[in-house]
Each structure stands twice: as structure tokens, then as C-alpha cells.
């Protein structure tokens, strides 16, 4: 049995402690203190360049913090990085399935790298492909997939090993409404069955509202607003929308920082997918 299921849902599965990251003189993440309770879907919002991806890259141990630290599934991301990696799943912001492999082979690689028991590999892959509506495309090269199909494949990959915490960086970007719903269903189902905790970034207010139990809006590396979607709206008045909350928290102006790098990357990914 996994320890998470026996613990009260209030205990944090992710806790950042003055988590900070600089890039040269740029303070991308500024002494972030954040806790995410077990079994919740936590949404991280914020304008381009606010620091969302940087937070996720630190929590997935890909990027060392400049100062501060965090605990994921009870382990320190700096001192115990290898243990952290046994308990997480990750969908990067870039489309990152291997185009030279088929969907099935991508899933098999994940299953093997994440130590899914041998006997369960095939059934889990089959189930995941079916759930994501990819069974027909299972044996064609991912290079020929549409962007939305790649995204669904990646969500399938990241949930295959039933991680304690799942990090999803804009998982539904570029998905059509049906595919988007399929991803939401998958995430909700995973949480229900395996008590998974999720940290998800998004620019989609509907997604934040429908999917997330709790939200944080980041601005220039700091938390500008925090709470449940309902509470955040309630603070602004009876008819406020999440858009209003976002605009207020994010300062209402177009952020100067960042964006460019990611835009370039997204473009080149699009080019790759034709």
C-alpha cells in the first residue's frame, strides 16, 4: 500500500520552502512558499514568464534551486532527488514524445523506465491507449500524430506508473474541446483511483475552474493570489469571473519578461509536427 492513502488529506505532498531561482540577474522564482495537500489538483496560473515552468522544473529535480528547497512526496528535491523521481510523473511544456517511435513504444519505454511491473505493462498500456482514444494510432509513428494526439499520449505516459505527484505543464494547450475533456477525465480518474496529487499550469480559465481544487496566481516569481476558485472570485464580488481575478493578480499589463523563449520553442515544435 502506498503511504499517501493512509494520511489525512490535509498533509502536504508538495511543500516549497523559500524556493528561489535566478537566471543571471533575473529573479524567475522569488522565495516561493507553497503547500499542496494530498489528493488535490492544484492549478498554477500566471502570465507568460511568471515563473510557472521554472517552479515545475525545480520540483521535478531538473533544475537546482538557487536557494531554498522543497519537499515532494516527503523527500527533499535537492538532497534526495533520486527518491523524488521515483514518485513523480511529468508532462513538460514542450511536446516531448519521441517522434521516431510509435505511441505504443513511447508508452512501453515509460513503463520500463518507471519500473511498472512487467506483467502489468501491457494491460496498463492498452488501457491508457483506449482511454485516451489512441488505440487506432497505437502503432503509427508519433511523428505523424497531431499536436493534440501527442499531448494525450504524454498524459497517458505520465500516469502509467501511478505516481504520487503528477506535474503537468500546460497539458491541454492546443487540444480540441473533446480531447481536452478526455484529458480532464483521465486526470480526475487517476486522482480518484490512485490518490494522485497534481500540480498543473494553465492559461485556460475554464480548466482552472473545472479541474482545480485550489489555485495560485503567480506574478514575477511570487504568489499574487491563492485560494479555491470560488473563494478567489468571491473576494472580488458576486459577479466576478476567474478572468477578473487573473487580471487583477497579474497586474493587468503585458509582462515584459520571458515568453520569447517558449514561443520560439512552441513554434519549432509546431513546425516539427507540420
Amino acid at each position, binding site marked *: 500500500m502506498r503511504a499517501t492513502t493512509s*494520511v489525512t488529506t490535509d498533509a502536504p505532498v508538495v511543500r516549497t520552502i523559500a524556493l528561489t531561482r535566478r537566471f543571471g540577474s533575473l529573479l524567475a522564482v522569488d522565495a516561493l512558499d507553497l503547500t499542496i495537500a494530498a489528493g488535490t489538483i492544484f492549478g498554477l496560473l500566471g502570465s507568460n514568464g511568471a515563473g510557472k515552468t521554472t517552479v515545475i522544473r525545480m520540483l521535478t*529535480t531538473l533544475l537546482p534551486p538557487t536557494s531554498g528547497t522543497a519537499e515532494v*512526496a516527503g523527500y527533499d528535491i535537492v538532497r534526495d532527488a533520486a527518491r523524488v523521481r*521515483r514518485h513523480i510523473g*511529468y508532462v513538460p*511544456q514542450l511536446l516531448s514524445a519521441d517522434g521516431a517511435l510509435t505511441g505504443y513504444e513511447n508508452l512501453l519505454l515509460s513503463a520500463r523506465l518507471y519500473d511498472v511491473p512487467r506483467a502489468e505493462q501491457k494491460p496498463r498500456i492498452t488501457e491508457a491507449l483506449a482511454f485516451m482514444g489512441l488505440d487506432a494510432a497505437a502503432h503509427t509513428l508519433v511523428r505523424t500524430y497531431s499536436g493534440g494526439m501527442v499531448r494525450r499520449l504524454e498524459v497517458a505516459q505520465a500516469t502509467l506508473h501511478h505516481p504520487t505527484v503528477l506535474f503537468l505543464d500546460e497539458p491541454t494547450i492546443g487540444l480540441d474541446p473533446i480531447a481536452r475533456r478526455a484529458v480532464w477525465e483521465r486526470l480526475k480518474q487517476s486522482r480518484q483511483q490512485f490518490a494522485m496529487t497534481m500540480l498543473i499550469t494553465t492559461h485556460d480559465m475554464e480548466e482552472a475552474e473545472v479541474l482545480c481544487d485550489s489555485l495560485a496566481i503567480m506574478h514575477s516569481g511570487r504568489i499574487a493570489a491563492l485560494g479555491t476558485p470560488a473563494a478567489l472570485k468571491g473576494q472580488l464580488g458576486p459577479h466576478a469571473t476567474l478572468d477578473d481575478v487573473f487580471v487583477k493578480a497579474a497586474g493587468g499589463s503585458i509582462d515584459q519578461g520571458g515568453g520569447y523563449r517558449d514561443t520560439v520553442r512552441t513554434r519549432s515544435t509546431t513546425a516539427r509536427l507540420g
Partner: protein
Amino acid sequence: MTPSAPVALPPASVEGEPRGALAACAAFARHSAAILAVEVRKMLRDPTDLFTRAVQPLLWLLVFGQVFTRTRAIPTGPLSYIEFMAPGVLAQSVLFTAIFYGIGVIWERDLGVVHKLLASPASRTSLVFGKAMAAGIRTVSQAVIIVLLAVIMGVRVRFDPMSLIGVVCAVMLGGALFSTFSLVIACIVKTRDRFMGIGQLLTMPLFFASNAIYPLEMMPRWLRAVAQYNPLTYLVEALRALMVQGGASSAGLPADFAVLMLVFIAFVLLAARLFPGLVR
């Protein structure tokens, strides 16, 4: 109970964690094998470059080999010049293929594939080792083609099974070694453009500062000193002893393999350290 300050969750169970050295080795083998399997699959899916890579060695053997065999300008002991150089050309083609391996990894980094590998529980060493093994296997096709070419050109090739197996092992080890070296460079320079520059800068010196196409004894003293620290020299020596009748290794085969193995292990450990830096 203090509900305002949530208690940190006790560490999640470590059921999947390898316990003991044996389990750690098993995990290492599983993860390396997973990487190896996908790399080999990709290679088989697009085998054209396995053959285009045979063109350059063919030219070396045909042109350079035949001209110098005729001039007899290079003292090669009991071997004809073409017999002397055939193992050198094989080693060279292994080097030239493997040295650009890193560019594929940079490409995968740009696509985000490497990020996912590095966020997985597979140890960095197992990732690097799996990729190195795949690069090693890649070179076997070159060995087959070049040995056949050598036979056609009149080289007295050793055909006993042990020698053939030895050639394959040496070639795989060489391919694994130089591809891991390439990965180290990729982790340092990080971009494709810079990598192309460095790759081109390195291959020719590595090639010429070795005994691939002329014996060490012919070299000026300084070059000989350099060549003695060049892993390619040991690969050439091993191949000369294993591939050609009458060929011998001056240091002896076990010494050649030991040097290659040690250098390979050193590069794997170094690459495993540097690999995470590729995505920062």
C-alpha cells in the same frame, strides 16, 4: 493537533526502490536495456545511413590504400600497406560515426525528450550506458562492410570465430567509447552549431594523432607522445591483431582492451554527471 500548520507527509513508501547492490544492478540493467531497445529500434527503422557511412571508408581503402601500397613509402613490417591500414580505416569509421552521436542527443533535448528521461527514476548512468551500447551496436554494420571490402581488396583476414567475435567486440567498445565522449562534449557545448564546430575540430586530430594509417615509429616524437594517449591508437592496435593474419598488437590485446574499457568507464561516469546539465 495544530490544524493551521499542516504536518509534513511522511515519506511515501519506497516499494519500488532497489534495495542492496544486486537490486541496484538489476535496475541498472533494466533501464539500460529499455534505452538500448528503443535506440536499436529507431536505427532499424532508418537503416540508410548504415550504408551511406560505408562510402567514406571505401574511398580511403581504394584510393589512399592502393596508392600507398604501390609506393611502399610506409614501412609496415610483415603486412602489406593495405593490410596495415584496413583495421585503421575501420577504427576511423567507428570514430567518425560515433563522434557525432552527441548531436542527436542535443536534438532530443531541443524536443524535450531528454527532460522526460532525466525526470524518470532511471539513474543517469543507466541512461548514458544504454545510449552508449546502442551506439556500439551501430558500428557493427560498419565492421561487416569494411571487413568484406578488405577481403575483396586482397587483405588476408582472419576468419576464425574467435577473431571475428573479437573484432565485433573491439568495434562496439570503440563506438561506445567515442559516442560517450561525444555526449560529454554535447553536455558542455549544449547547442548544435557549436557542437558541429567542435566535432569537426576534434575528429581529424584524433585520427592523425593515431597509428591508423602510419605506424607510431614513423611519427615525430611529440606526435608519438600524443598518439600514446589517444584511445583510437589502442582500438587500431586491437583491430590489427584481431582482423589481419600476421598482424600483432605491440602492447598485447588484453592491454588494449583494458585501456579502452577504462577510458569508456571514465567517460560514462563523466557523461552521467554532466547529462543533467543539458536541460538546465
